[in-house]
C-alpha cells in the first residue's frame, strides 16, 4: 500500500481539522478528494505528501510561484535540487538547453509555451495554475498530488490539463470541487465532511446525488 493513515487526527490552532481519519491508497489508483472548502482536503493532502516526499510531485493550491522569476525558471524550480549549484547559476543567466527542451515540451502540452519568458506576475490566474502544474510535471515523479490544480480553468482546458496529469503519473490523488470531473476521470472518490471521511468508494458506485450530499 502506497499511502496509509490510521485513526489520524489533526488540529490547527486548537481547531480540529481532521478527525480520526483512516485511509489506504494503492499504487496506480486515481483518487479524487471532494468536499466543501475548509473541510480538510488540503490538510489531508499535506499528510499524504509527507509520507513519500521523494516520489511525489505536489501541486499545492496556492501555486507557490515566485513572482520575480519568469515561467521557465518557475518550472525549472521543480528539479532545482537535482542539479548542482553551478548548473543552476548558469541556467539563471542562460537557459540550459536540455532543460529548455524538456520544459518547452511540457509547456506545449499545457498551452503555455508562448509564456515561458514572461514573468509569472503578469499571467492570468489560469495561466499561473498551469505553470504550477508544469513544475510538478517537470519533476517526473510517479505520484501526483494536486490541490485544486484545475480550479481556475474553463472546462475544456480543465479537462486537457487533467488528462495530461493522468497520463503522466501512475498514481494521482487530487482534491477537486468539480463533481463532474471527479465522476468522469477518477477511479475512486473520497468525500470529506467536517474533518471526517463520509464517503470512500469506487467511482462506479458513486452518483451525483451522493456527492451533492457532501455540499449540504
Amino acid at each position, binding site marked *: 500500500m502506497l499511502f496509509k493513515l490510521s485513526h489520524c487526527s489533526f488540529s490547527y490552532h486548537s481547531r480540529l481539522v481532521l478527525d480520526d481519519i483512516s485511509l489506504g491508497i494503492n499504487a496506480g489508483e486515481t483518487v479524487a478528494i471532494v468536499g466543501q472548502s475548509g473541510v480538510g482536503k488540503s490538510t489531508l493532502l499535506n499528510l499524504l*505528501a509527507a509520507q513519500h*516526499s*521523494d516520489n511525489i510531485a*505536489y*501541486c*499545492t493550491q496556492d501555486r*507557490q*510561484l*515566485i*513572482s*520575480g*522569476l519568469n515561467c521557465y*525558471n518557475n518550472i*525549472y*524550480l*521543480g528539479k*532545482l*535540487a537535482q*542539479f548542482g*549549484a553551478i548548473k*543552476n*547559476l548558469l541556467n*539563471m543567466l542562460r537557459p540550459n538547453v536540455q532543460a529548455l527542451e524538456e520544459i518547452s515540451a511540457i509547456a506545449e502540452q499545457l498551452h503555455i509555451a508562448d509564456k515561458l519568458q514572461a514573468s509569472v506576475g503578469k499571467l492570468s490566474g489560469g495561466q499561473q495554475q498551469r505553470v504550477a502544474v508544469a513544475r510538478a510535471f517537470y519533476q517526473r515523479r510517479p505520484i501526483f498530488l494536486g490541490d485544486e490544480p484545475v480550479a481556475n480553468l474553463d472546462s475544456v482546458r480543465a479537462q486537457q490539463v487533467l488528462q495530461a496529469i493522468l497520463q503522466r503519473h501512475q498514481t494521482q490523488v487530487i482534491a477537486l470541487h468539480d463533481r463532474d470531473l471527479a465522476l468522469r476521470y477518477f477511479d475512486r472518490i473520497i468525500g470529506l465532511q467536517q474533518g471526517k471521511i463520509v464517503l470512500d468508494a469506487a467511482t462506479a458506485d458513486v452518483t451525483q446525488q451522493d456527492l451533492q450530499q457532501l455540499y449540504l
Partner: protein
Amino acid sequence: MNTLSSGSSVGLKLRNFSLLLVAAGLLASIFADVQIYASEPWAHLRIMLQGLFSPSISDPQQLAIDLFYTLSFALIGVSLAAVAGLLLSLLYQHPLVRFCCAFFRAIHELFWALLFMQLFGLSASTAILAIAIPYACTFARVFHDIYQHAPIKLRQLPELADSKFSHFLYVLLPQVWPQMRSYLRYRFECGVRTSAVLGFVGLPTIGFHLETAFKQGDYSYAGALLLAFFLLIASIKYWLKVYLLPVYIGIALWFLPGSEFTNSSDNIWRFFSVDIWPAVIKTADQSIVEKLLAYGQWLSSLLLQQGLPGMGSTLLLSLMALAATAVLCVLLAPLLTLMRGQWLVNSAGQCLLLVMRSTPEYILAFVLLLLLGPSMLPAVIALAIHNSGLISFLLQRDIAAAQTSTTASVSFSDFLYKVMPDLYAKFISLLMYRAEIILRESAILGVLGVTTLGFYIDSAFEDLRFDRALALLFLTALLNVVVDQLSRKLQLCFSDQGIRVRSKD
C-alpha cells in the same frame, strides 16, 4: 476605562513599551549631567548663522574632489559590504556568524578608520574597509531579516533544503529583491554620510574640510560644504540606478586616490605583535602565566578606571537620546503627514528631514555646545535630531507607499485612526534598531567632554595606546551585543508578534 488601559492588544503593549522608554530616559536624566550652563553665545551664533546662510567657496575644484572621493569611498565600501553581507546573511543562522556580526557592527566607523589607519595609513583602503566591515555586518542581519519575511517557502519541495545556494538564488532572492534594493539604496545614503564623517579623522572626504571650517570659524565655507553635501544626498535618488552601478564603481576605482604608503605588511605585523599589547607583558623574562596575570591586572585596572565609568555614561546618554528621539518622532510624524497635502509645505518638510538626518552629529553638537554649555544635554539633543530625522524619513517613505491609491491629503483624525495604527509597530522597531546606532554614535561627541566609552577610545587612539583602544573597543562591542539581546527580549515581552519585525538573533 480600566479595561482599556489594562488590555492586552498589540497596540496597548506598544504604547506601554514607548511609555517605558520615555520613563527610562527621564530616569536616566536624573543621574546624568544635563545641566545648562548660562553662556553668551549670541555674538558667536550670529556670526555662525550669518556665515552658514551666506555660503561662499574659494576653491570649487577642491570641493568637487572632496565630493567625488566621498562618493567613491561610499560606493565601493557599500558595494563590498553588500556582497559580503549577502554571503554572511546566508550563514546568519550560525550563532558564531551572528555574534561576530553584532560584534563588528558595534564598532563605530570612525574607530574602524582609526584602526585601519595604523595598518594602511591615510589611504583609500582605510576608508573603504572602515565602511565595508560594519556595513557588511548590518547587511547580513537585515538581509537575513528580509529573508524571514519571504512569503513563499516552497514546502512542497522539501529536498530544496539541501541545496542552499540554489534555493537562495531561485526562491529567496527573486522574492525579496525589491526590498533588498530599496534597503541598498537607503544604505548607500548612509554610506555617503559615513564617508563624509570619515573626513574628521583625516581621510580626504568632505568631512575633512567641514570639520576644519567649523573649528576655524570659517562658517561661510562650512555653509557651502554643508549645502553641497545636502544636495549630493538629495540627488542620490535621481542617479543611483542598479544597472549603472558597474559604471560608477569602475569610475570610482579608477580615480581612487593613490597613497605613498607601501610598507603596510610591516605595519600590520607590528600592530598585532607589539602595539596592541600593554607594556606590562612585554618584558622578556616572563612566563606565560605571569604574562596572563599581568594582563589580567592591567585589564581590570583599565576596566575600573575607564571601562565601567565609560559604560555607565554611554548607557545613560543612550537611554536619554533614545527617549528624546522617540518624543521628537512622535511630534514630527503627524506634522509631516498633515503637510503631505500641500506641495510646497511638503517639500519644506522633506528638506527639514534631509537636513536633520544628514548633518553630522558632531556639527550639531558643536552648535549646541555653544548654546547650552558642556553636558550630556547637547549630545542628547544632537543624537535625537539626527535619529528622529532618519526615522521620520523612513516612516514617511512607508506612509507614501501606503497612500498612493488614496487621496493625498490626510486629516489629523485620519492620521490617528488610519496611519498610526499601521505605522506604530514599524516605528518602534526602527527605534530599537537605532538604539544600537545611538550607542555607537555617542562615541564621537568627545568635544563635549562627555566621558562615554567612545571618549576613552578616542583618547586611547590620540595617546597612541592601541592596547587600551582595543580592549575598550572589545568592551564596547560586548556591551552592544548585550544591549541588543536585552532590547530584543524586552520587545518580545511587550508584544506577541507586533513589534517583531526583527529576526531571532
